[in-house]
């Protein structure tokens, strides 16, 4: 969820040197992840903003952490990129030590450790999703503040507020991969239509035992709804 922030910092605001770019790059966003039998489907929009300007309209917010573990990033672009790089390193090291594929829960714990320890300094809402041989497809959400919880379906980012109703009413346990893809694409489209901070293209990925399949749905190929 997006918290509006005023970045004037007491005496620093008097000194012009510190307010050059009083805008931070944000991934005000819609991100989503759904578990299904045999894996997970993750999705995100592609907009990064600095103030009212779209700095990158084709951002990839689905970041690989390990071979079959991804994270969806929302919040401050700098913070989430730095956290993701750090966790990728830690998880890679851990996986080599173990000599086996890491658990999704381990990745989520690493994110939670960092996001909770530095919660005052960071602005990061992350959804960790992937597949491991022990527990199959899993989705863990680590929102701003640093809590971690496993959910069958999770949404995040500023655009998520607009689709909680859609997700709660349309999610059913035991959906197939294709149904999950359609569900995610439609939910993201609805959020992108209503949220100014989300837009661009829809990026989707399916993570399963077979590996990762990525796809992009361009603006003109998005599903159409009656009011839009």
């Amino acid at each position, binding site marked *: 969820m997006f918290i509006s922030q005023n970045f004037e910092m007491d005496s620093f605001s*008097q000194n012009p040197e510190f307010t*050059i*770019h009083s805008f931070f*790059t944000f991934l005000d966003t819609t991100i989503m992840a759904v578990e299904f039998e045999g894996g997970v489907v993750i999705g995100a929009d592609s907009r990064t903003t*600095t103030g009212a300007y779209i*700095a*990158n309209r084709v951002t990839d917010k689905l970041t690989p952490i390990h071979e079959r573990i991804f994270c969806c990033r929302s919040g401050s672009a*700098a913070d989430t*990129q*730095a956290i993701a790089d750090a966790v990728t390193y830690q998880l890679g090291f851990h996986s080599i030590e173990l000599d086996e594929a890491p658990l999704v829960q381990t990745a989520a714990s690493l994110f939670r450790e960092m996001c909770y320890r530095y919660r005052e300094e960071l602005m990061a809402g992350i959804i960790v999703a992937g597949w491991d041989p022990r527990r199959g497809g899993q989705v863990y959400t680590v929102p701003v503040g640093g809590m971690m919880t496993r959910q069958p379906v999770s949404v995040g980012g500023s655009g998520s507020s607009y689709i909680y109703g859609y997700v709660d009413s349309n999610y059913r346990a035991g959906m197939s991969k294709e149904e999950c893809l359609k569900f995610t694409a439609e939910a993201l489209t609805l959020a992108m239509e209503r949220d100014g901070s989300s837009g661009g293209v829809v990026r989707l990925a399916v993570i399963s035992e077979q590996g990762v399949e990525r796809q992009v749905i361009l603006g003109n190929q998005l599903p159409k709804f009656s009011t839009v």
Partner: protein
Amino acid sequence: MASVSVCQYRPGGFSFENCKRNALLEADINKLGFSSPAARKTGTTICGVVYKDGVVLGADTRATEGMVVADKNCSKIHYISPNIYCCGAGTAADTEMTTQIISSNLELHSLSTGRLPRVTTANRMLKQMLFRYQGYIGAALVLGGVDCNGPHLYSIYPHGSTDKLPYVTMGSGSLAAMAVFEDRYRPNMEEEEAKRLVRDAIAAGIFNDLGSGSNIDLCVITKGNVDYLRPHDMANKKGVRTGSYRYKHGTTGVLTKAVTPLNLEVVEESVQTMDTS
């Protein structure tokens, strides 16, 4: 944060001791009617484009100090390594020093690995440094180069986020330049077309943004070759005066003249030769 212990003052990082004093000084100066000196910024247009054989980086050449142009022909395309160059916008000192630090570290790294440095390595180093300083280093950069994996272009923001894209613009004139790119960019352009596109994008920034101006510098990086074109286009040549404005002798009439000789006595004379070896 309660975790910082009171007994041990942590050294390093920025010292903000003078901020209170500066605020008081600024208040006093304003009472007298003067204004305190502003940081020299490069209100700027910088951009880069990936084309068929490499990357083209472009920049304007104006450096501003508040509302005054401090340098009419400053160089904003900085050397990082033989195959990697970086354009800088934001605080001039920050972009200059940051690129020099990373250039130095990258040269050491390159000697250690025995390989030509990669653009992604420079990107990592820059983003990790800028994130460490949490945005206090005001450097917004366009990093481009060609390495063993082909041409790469990154935009790096002061807080440490980066984007890897086929075309990027930064600085106060970035919106004007991006408009030109969004209209005319195509993948796999030829060199001349790419140079023309970058030149036009910077020109859009120069003529539509007050913080950008003067000439257009270009840097064309291909595999094994760099063309640093400075200036590529002198878009704002200084005009030639049409007439002479010197006053003729006798324009100002002399009413009175008073000569007062100063009687000076030579007290001591000594010669010191300068060591010019």
